[in-house]
């Protein structure tokens, strides 16, 4: 008898079937990956297992846990199942933990509710659990509120709360999606180490995580099971078309041909740019510190970094959306300065931006046609309306959208279509530099692949230069000619795609690359390469900003700030660069 046995699970909301006849088994102690793109029904299935679907859901089929039927069971029995037999970790610990309660109290409630400890012994159990999930100084953290902890620490607390009642099954719903990649590696390690004999049902969109951490996997597509089986065999010989699509769209950080370097003339040069924000209370925050780089005609330069690295602030300053504290930018031989509204019309026309979240980047009250034609109204005042419409339809066709989309509103578009519209708006003026700020981060794998191809094609046709901001190294590897790595507001390494991925010189660059899960079960997952998390920019560490986390740290590092210097075509800021 399986620990968890789900057969024919179907979930409907009115006429909308979100889960359709799903079968799923989890044996004692094993780890199973539930994979799918957004809207595939993976989270809904998990909620159904815990009996937590909202009142409007119609559920049918069967969910047996340890031989007993969960569907239709009474709430009191379900409460004995939750946490005690099945623990769950949610995606975003900032939302999933109660901001008004100290974390220790939240964990304590689990023990008290299940009668696992009395009021006096509970606190000791909680402190011990906090220590097990790797919280430094657990006595003190017991009294912390969630907002006082870092993202990684919050997720550790979440895991502690899921495991404190020693359940038989742990459901982890995208447990690392809200985290930085180096922290993700730590959390995945922790999940492996701590769960012992607890079975794991890991829900994720990331094939790399499944490949490294699950024995079995189930692929969902639009609420149905597309394929299920041992992870190694599914990866080796996917039978279902959807699995094949997913696997072919999964990018690898560890291999792949680097795009040929571009030898154009320099189009945009950024010299020692700094960005400062003033926090409440007057403290200055150094978001970007003396960053220099150049962008050539027809080249894609990727800016890589985790949250707080300053990558977005850097390009926003270049574009004139936030003020630059010092430094200068030269575009096509002319200085580019001041806020965007004071810049020359031609300069504004030449530099365009694509945002991360297409839902927020498109005005909900405007139709696609109005959205795409607005830049023309500003820059081509005299253009007759039929010519304008022609330009709009042409650019929409180029991004793969037919005339039928002209009259649509943003909420009538899918995520991929909306991002295409945003790209069309950015391209309609035929700019020479396109800045993509995490432009594919919100997209599913298969759609992401198409959008990346679209960008590549446009570049080949028009010689567009692209600044590509991303936290995802696998994406960066596939698209960029050169890569800048940023950490805590500083440029730590800059090199060609080839050099960065084959011979990274900065320990942080290497850690970043090693942290990315590889979608290949044959490649054993690496242990988390670095500890800790990104420092606060309000109070950055002295010396090298990376030294508190660096495996190669030495006395010099904590005192002296390394300067960026050339080393065989790579620029690196490190006292002890890797020699590989």
């Amino acid at each position, binding site marked *: 008898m399986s620990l968890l046995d789900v057969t024919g699970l179907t979930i409907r909301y009115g006429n909308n079937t979100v889960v359709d006849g799903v079968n799923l088994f989890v044996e004692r102690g094993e780890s199973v990956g539930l994979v799918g793109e957004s809207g595939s029904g993976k989270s809904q299935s998990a909620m159904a297992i815990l009996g937590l679907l909202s009142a409007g859901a119609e559920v049918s089929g069967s969910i047996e846990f340890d031989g007993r039927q969960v569907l239709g069971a009474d709430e009191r029995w379900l409460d004995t199942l939750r946490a005690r037999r099945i623990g769950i970790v949610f995606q975003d610990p900032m939302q999933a933990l109660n901001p008004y309660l100290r974390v220790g109290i939240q964990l304590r409630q689990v023990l008290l509710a299940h009668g696992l400890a009395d009021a006096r012994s509970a606190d000791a159990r909680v402190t011990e659990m906090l220590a097990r999930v790797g919280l430094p100084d657990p006595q003190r953290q017991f009294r912390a509120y969630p907002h006082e902890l870092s993202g990684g620490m919050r997720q550790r607390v979440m895991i502690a709360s899921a495991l404190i009642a020693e359940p038989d099954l742990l459901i982890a719903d995208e447990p690392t999606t809200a985290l930085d990649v180096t922290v993700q590696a730590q959390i995945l390690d922790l999940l492996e180490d701590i769960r012992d004999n607890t079975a794991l049902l890991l829900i994720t969109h990331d094939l790399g995580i499944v490949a490294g951490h699950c024995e079995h996997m189930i692929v969902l597509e639009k609420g149905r099971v597309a394929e299920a089986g041992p992870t190694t065999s599914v990866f080796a010989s996917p039978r279902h078309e959807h699995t094949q699509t997913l696997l072919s769209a999964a990018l690898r950080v560890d291999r792949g041909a680097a795009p040929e370097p571009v030898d154009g003339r320099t189009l945009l040069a950024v010299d020692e740019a700094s960005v400062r924000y003033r926090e409440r209370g007057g403290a200055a925050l150094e978001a970007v510190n003396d960053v220099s780089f150049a962008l050539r005609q027809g080249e894609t330069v990727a800016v890589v970094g985790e949250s707080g690295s300053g990558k977005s602030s850097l390009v926003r300053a270049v574009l004139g*959306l936030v003020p630059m504290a010092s430094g200068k930018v030269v575009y096509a031989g002319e200085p580019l300065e001041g806020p965007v509204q004071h810049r020359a019309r031609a300069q504004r026309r030449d530099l365009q931006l694509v945002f991360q*979240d297409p839902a927020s980047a498109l005005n909900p009250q405007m139709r696609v046609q109005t959205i795409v034609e607005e830049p023309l109204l*500003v820059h081509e005042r005299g253009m007759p309306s039929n010519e304008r419409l022609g330009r709009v339809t042409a650019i929409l066709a180029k991004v793969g959208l037919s005339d039928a989309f002209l009259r649509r509103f943003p909420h009538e578009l899918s995520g991929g279509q909306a991002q295409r519209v945003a790209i069309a*708006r950015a391209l309609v003026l035929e700019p020479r530099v396109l800045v993509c700020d995490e432009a594919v981060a919100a997209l599913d794998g298969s759609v992401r692949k198409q959008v990346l191809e679209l960008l590549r094609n446009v570049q080949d046709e028009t010689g567009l230069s692209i600044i590509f901001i991303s936290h995802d190294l696998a994406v960066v590897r596939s698209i960029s000619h050169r890569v800048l790595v940023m950490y805590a507001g500083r440029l730590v390494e800059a090199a060609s795609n080839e050099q960065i991925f084959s011979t990274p010189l900065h320990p942080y660059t290497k850690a970043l690359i090693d942290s990315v899960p590889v979608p290949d079960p044959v490649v054993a997952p690496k242990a988390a390469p670095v500890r800790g998390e990104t420092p606060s920019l309000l109070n950055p560490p002295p010396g090298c900003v990376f030294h508190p986390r660096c495996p190669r740290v030495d006395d010099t590092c904590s005192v002296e700030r390394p300067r960026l210097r050339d080393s065989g075509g790579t620029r690196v800021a490190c006292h002890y660069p890797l020699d590989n």
Partner: protein
Amino acid sequence: MKTVKVTGSILLAIAVAAIAGPWLSPNDYVTTNFNAILSNPSIDGARWFGTDDLGRDLFVRTMLGIRVTLAVAIVASIVSLVIGVTYGAIAGYVGGRVDAVMMRFVDTLYALPFIFFVILLMVVFERNFLLIFVAIGAINWLDMARIVRGQTLSLREREFVEAARLTGVSTARIVFRHIAPNLIGIVVVYITLTIPQAILFESFLSFLGLGVQEPQTSLGTLVDAGVGHMERASWTLLIPASLLAVILLCFNFMGDGLRDYFDARHGQ
């Protein structure tokens, strides 16, 4: 949307009655008749709502009261709309220090016992029709300013506004084409919720004898008069009181319904 339609129809019916009613009646609102003091509602002599303590026709007076009440509400709402939207939109769009100062001022005003100030105003400057309008509007703009400011602030941070700025779209166009259309929903909702507040306030002043002056009347004044005679002639209280309650109820339900409607649309 059903609630909105139902309440809207009721309000429209009341408004039409208030405008047309006095013409249909053979009586007027000033003529006193000391032979028919506090007489019961009856068909005779078209005393549909009876008479008051001076023998004046209560139907015509009630319809007149509704007119005044609705007029005050509408004017006050327009005043609060203009001040609140302008103030809130400026604070939200400009942001930063300007916003902080402007909102600090609103916070300060929030702490004032406004009702007392208006009463003070009424006492000091005699009872003035226009003053009532302006004073009520001047109180109600605070909520509107806060709501509009919050919405504008969040819209301004939205990426489509940034995209427009980047392309070179003029500030005027950003405000009118990008921000304003996204504000309409919430403004409409708050206007429908401001109207009953204004009505309540006007009738409160009139009830205290500080609002509309004789022989003019409003629903508040009528309720006040009705309270004095409720033991002998309960209809003099119940008719204007229930009409006032129905009007307020309709506006409140309408605002609620509109909010649900816009929330649902926003959720798409």
